[in-house]
């Protein structure tokens, strides 16, 4: 139990050790730990941010998909309607055209009939005249009765 100079020496050693730790040991360890803590916190925050962004963009993508689907079905409906319309139009046009053709054909037929009738009539008149001529040749002078004959031919 003797207190002696060892005490002073130990106190000096103690103080030197504290100063050494304070200057050279504590700061680098503290720095390393705090830097790492900050890095981990930053990393976690970035991960969280990325996750939120991913969620948002996938939501956006599904929204766009839905929109595109709606638009596509709209376009499809429109196209169908248009197709029907075109078919209807074509039907109408074809009917009109057909009617026109039929009318034309009918008119032509009428014309043809008339022409045939005319031809026949002329032939009949010529024939009648020829018959009458043959009959009247002897009695009637052609020049004298030409007027009457022409009038008859016209009446026919």
């Amino acid at each position, binding site marked *: *139990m003797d207190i*002696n100079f*060892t005490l002073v020496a130990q106190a000096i050693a103690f*103080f030197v050790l*504290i100063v050494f730790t*304070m200057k050279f*040991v504590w700061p680098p*360890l503290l720095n390393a730990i705090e*830097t790492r803590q900050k890095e981990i916190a930053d990393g976690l925050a970035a991960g969280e941010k990325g996750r939120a962004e991913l969620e948002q963009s996938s939501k956006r993508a599904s929204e766009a998909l839905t929109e595109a689907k709606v638009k596509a079905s709209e376009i499809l409906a429109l196209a169908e309607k248009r197709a029907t319309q075109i078919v209807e139009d074509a039907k109408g046009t074809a009917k009109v055209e057909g009617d026109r053709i039929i009318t034309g054909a009918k008119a032509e037929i009428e014309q043809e009939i008339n022409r045939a009738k005319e031809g026949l009539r002329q032939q009949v008149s010529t024939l009648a005249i020829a018959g009458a001529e043959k009959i009247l040749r002897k009695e009637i002078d052609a020049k004298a009765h030409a007027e009457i004959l022409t009038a008859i031919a016209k009446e026919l």
Partner: protein
Amino acid sequence: MATEHALTPSGYIEHHLSFNSLSIGDGSFWTIHVDTLVMSVALGMIAMGLIWLVSRGATAGVPTKRQAFMELVFDFVDDQVKNIYHGNRHTFIAPAALTVFIWVFMMNAMDFLPIDIVAKYIVEPIGGEHTFWRSVPTSDINTTFALALTVWFLMIFFAIKSKGLGGWIHELFCSPFGTNPLIWPANFLFNLIEYVSKPLSHSLRLFGNMYAGEVIFLLLGLWAATGVTGTIAGAILGAGWSIFHILIVALQAFIFMMLTVVYLAMAQESH
């Protein structure tokens, strides 16, 4: 040292409780305990040097196992200090606490070494036969008093630094009972007792624990010298005491550190 002639139990104990003293002047004060000083300084240099080596290469990235261990110790000390002291602990108190913890732990841990191993295999080849050598520096009252008194001076230094000299003196006379001049003596007496008891309890707690631990090891060693039965019993009990001592070594280092932090933190608080 079992071969020493005319060996008596009291002689054995006395031998192992004697310091390797070196007189550096007249009077009993001017003596140095070479064993205490060499052991403590060597341990301090080894321990703090190792930590320094690790912390010098400390990286903020993935730590090596060595660095992870040091960070574990660092975090343990830092957490304790954080709970007690609410100022900027990184400038002084936390590094001081780390130093105290590691150093005291290392010095206490010398108790695990067999009693004579340092004397027999390191000191005697240098210093000759029967050199006195106590390898546990904390079982020397000088060491524990040195630590406690250093903390005591730091305590007063920080008290004056944070409150000013006037504030500190004011507190000596006006706390804890009040500012009435009639109770100044009572206040002063109270503070005086506190200032005396702090370093005493601080140092004697550690000293008592380590000294008692060492004496028990010596007694077990003494028993081991009495014959086969004593050797077996001494070995078993010695192993048991060593295992229990692991707790004491760590616990006393922890308590010493905590008290250091508490005293230094209290000094900076105003009452």
